[in-house]
């Protein structure tokens, strides 16, 4: 029996991160997950760490632990993200802006940077980052969040170009709406308005998101890099 592929996922304590982790554990992966809180997954092959992805030092320690445990990383899913209730930019606090940039941009940056060092040495790997439909919508009230998710797309495309010579691909998923506690907290009115703007006017399922990750992760995906898959809407 061959060695199990290794996937690292950020933000696995709830929401889509938890669903992605469970899906790939069920499909033969070893999964190293992290979140700020305790493990929410109790399955064979799952290794949890408490990490604030916005902390450079904590990310370094986490990635070193993964390397020492598994020796390699085949797939990274940068899922952890911060989302705040929508407010017009004129009354958006600096704290909301800093929180969005810290988790969504710095977190993605640090994790991608440290994992890419492992992938560069092994000369293969798949990096998948998560953006948002909000980027395409230019949705009112999401200036901090959308700016941070737009940055995720840009840094992923640049990383894709830098790592292409080493056989590593980097792609982005921009999901429409997947029901999580954070999304619920935004309120029905916001959700209704967002749903009306979607091309496919329904909630995404975890299975649909995992399917796109599998598509990027498969060995035959070696020439697909720097791409953004928008789920549920036409941009």
């Amino acid at each position, binding site marked *: 029996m061959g060695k199990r592929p290794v996937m690292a996922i950020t933000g696995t304590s709830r929401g889509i991160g938890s669903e992605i982790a469970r899906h790939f554990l069920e499909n033969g992966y070893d999964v190293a997950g992290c979140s700020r809180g305790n493990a929410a997954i109790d399955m064979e092959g799952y290794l949890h760490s408490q990490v604030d992805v916005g902390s450079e030092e904590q990310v*370094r*320690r986490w990635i*070193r632990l993964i*390397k020492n445990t598994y020796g390699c990383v085949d797939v990274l899913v940068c899922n952890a993200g911060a989302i705040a209730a929508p407010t017009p930019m004129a009354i958006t606090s600096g704290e909301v802006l800093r929180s969005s940039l810290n988790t969504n941009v710095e977190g993605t940056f640090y994790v991608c940077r440290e994992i890419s*060092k*492992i992938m*560069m*040495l092994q*000369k293969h790997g798949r990096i998948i980052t998560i953006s948002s439909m909000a980027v395409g919508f230019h949705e009112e009230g999401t200036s901090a969040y959308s700016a941070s998710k737009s940055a995720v797309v840009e840094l992923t495309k640049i990383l894709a170009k*830098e790592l292409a*010579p*080493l056989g590593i691909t980097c792609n982005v998923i921009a999901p429409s709406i997947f029901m999580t506690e954070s999304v619920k907290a935004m309120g029905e009115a916001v959700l209704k308005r967002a749903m009306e703007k979607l091309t496919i006017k329904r909630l995404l399922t975890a299975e649909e998101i995992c399917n796109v990750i599998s598509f990027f992760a498969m060995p035959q995906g070696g020439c697909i890099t720097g791409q953004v898959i928008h789920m549920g809407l036409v941009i």
Partner: protein
Amino acid sequence: MVSKERAFELIQDSFGSLQRAGLLADKIVASAETVLLGIGSPLDSIGFVTFIAEMEDRLYRETARDIYLILDDIHTFNIENPYLTIDALARYIVMITGSQKEKHG
């Protein structure tokens, strides 16, 4: 603490790994003046980053401690004019492995 001589050996070993991985065309003999980053370096950007990753890996195996090579922390490194020699890196490794030992010990 990693001595300067040992740092040179680790750097030489890392060059060997890069050459075996096809990231270095020719064998490089590490000397104090060998340029790692900047004009005259045999490493391209990918090669340099891979070299740093390789060195961090070797330093971990050597010391059993998490050691990260952070360019901004190297005394002689100027971000406005990136230039790094093996001598500067070796001195930094001696310093950082010594100070980390004190910090954690």
